[in-house]
C-alpha cells in the first residue's frame, strides 16, 4: 500500500490517525496539493491510497473505513450513516468555517457556522449515552468526525466557547488516543490553523454548499 498526502491538507489528518490506529504497514509520500495521483481523475484528489491490488481509494472517509473495519460487523450501518452525514453535511460546513477562521480571521463567525452541526453531534451523543459515536469502542466514525473538527475545535478559545458537554468530552477522548495525538502533532507542527493556509487558498469556493443547512 502507498498513501499520498499533501502538507496542511485537513483531510489527511483522519487518514494518518487511522493508519496509526490500524498499525497497517504503508509507505507515505508527501506530494503537492495540485499533484494528480489518481490516474483516472482529471483533477487532484488527496489523500489517496494505492491498494496492493492496484486500485485507488481517493476519499479520506473510505480510506479510514477500510483501515478500521474488519468488514461485516454489526455496527457498519451506524458507521456508514455517520460517514455519509460527514461527507455531505459536515465537510462543506467545516471547509467554509476553516476559510472564515484562517483566511479571514473571523473565528467567532466560523464557530457560529459550525454550531448546528456540533449541536447535531451533541444531541446524538446524549441520546445514546455511549462513550463513542456508534458504541463504547472507537470506530472509523469517531476518527473521521474528530479529524474534520480537530483544526477548528483544537483552538483553545473555540472549544470553550461552545457549551456542548458530551461533544467536548468525546472530542477530548478521541484526541487522547496516542495515534490521534501523533497524527495531529505531525499535521500541525505547532503552527495551529495557519498550517492549513496554503491548502485553503487553493480550494475553489462553493457558496451553495457552504450555506446549506446542515441538520434537521
Amino acid at each position, binding site marked *: 500500500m502507498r498513501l499520498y498526502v499533501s502538507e496542511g491538507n485537513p483531510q489527511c489528518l483522519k487518514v494518518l490517525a487511522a493508519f496509526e490506529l490500524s498499525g497497517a504497514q504503508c509507505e507515505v509520500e508527501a506530494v503537492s496539493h495540485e499533484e494528480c495521483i489518481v490516474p483516472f481523475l482529471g483533477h487532484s484528489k488527496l489523500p489517496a491510497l494505492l491498494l496492493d491490488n492496484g486500485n485507488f481509494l481517493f*476519499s479520506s472517509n473510505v480510506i479510514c*473505513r477500510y483501515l478500521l473495519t474488519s468488514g461485516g460487523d454489526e455496527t457498519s450501518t451506524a458507521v*456508514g450513516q455517520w460517514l455519509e452525514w460527514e461527507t*455531505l453535511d459536515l465537510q462543506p460546513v467545516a471547509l467554509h468555517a476553516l476559510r472564515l477562521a484562517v483566511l479571514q480571521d473571523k473565528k467567532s463567525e466560523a464557530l457560529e457556522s459550525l454550531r448546528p452541526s456540533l449541536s447535531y453531534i451533541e444531541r446524538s451523543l446524549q441520546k445514546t449515552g455511549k462513550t463513542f459515536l456508534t458504541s463504547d469502542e472507537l470506530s472509523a466514525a469517531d476518527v473521521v468526525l474528530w479529524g474534520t473538527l480537530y483544526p477548528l475545535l483544537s483552538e483553545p478559545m473555540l472549544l470553550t466557547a461552545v457549551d456542548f458537554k458530551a461533544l467536548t468530552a468525546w472530542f477530548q477522548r478521541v484526541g487522547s488516543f496516542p495515534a490521534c495525538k501523533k497524527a495531529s502533532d505531525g499535521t500541525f507542527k505547532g503552527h495551529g490553523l495557519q498550517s492549513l493556509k496554503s491548502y485553503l487558498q487553493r480550494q475553489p469556493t462553493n457558496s451553495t454548499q457552504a450555506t446549506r443547512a446542515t441538520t*434537521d
Partner: protein
Amino acid sequence: MAEAALKELASLEKYLGLKKTNKYSTKGERKVPVLQTKDGQDIVGLVTIACHLVKAAKQEQLLGRTREESAVVQQWLEYRIVQLGAPGAKEESRSTLRDLNEYLEDKVYFGGDFLSLADILMYYGLHSCMVDLTVQDREKFVNVSRWFSHIQQLPNVQQHLPRVHIMKNRIYTNVH
C-alpha cells in the same frame, strides 16, 4: 432530489426482490431520505439505506466479497452521492463523465469484474445525464455508454427509468 432518491430506493427494493413494507420519509433542507425500521430506528442517507437493503435481502456480494472490494464499492457509492447527488451536479457532469470514462476503460463494472451496488446506484444517478447526451457525446464517452447499456439490460435493474438507446455501431468516425 428527494423524490428521486425515494424512487431510487423503491427501484432498488424491487431489484433486490424485497417486499414493499418499508416506510420512508425525508428530513432537513437537503431532503435526506430516512427509512423507519420495524424496531423504531431511523436509518438516514441514500447510501446507508441502500447498503442496509442489500443486507436485508441477503445479497451481501453486491457490497464486495473482500475488504479491498468492499472499499472500492464504498468509494464509488460515495462518488455517486458527492458528484451526482448534489445541487449543481449538472454543470459538472461533463468532468464527471470524463473521469468515469477513464476509469471504465478496462473494466466491466465499477468493482472491476463483479456487479455491485455501486453499478446500480450509479446507473440511477447517471440516467438523466445519459438521456440528455447527444449521440456524438455518447460515442465520446464510449466506455460509460458501454457500461450503461450493459447495466440497463440486466434483469430488474431498469425499473422506473426509460431505456436509453445506445448505438452499437459508431456513426462519427473522427471522435476521440
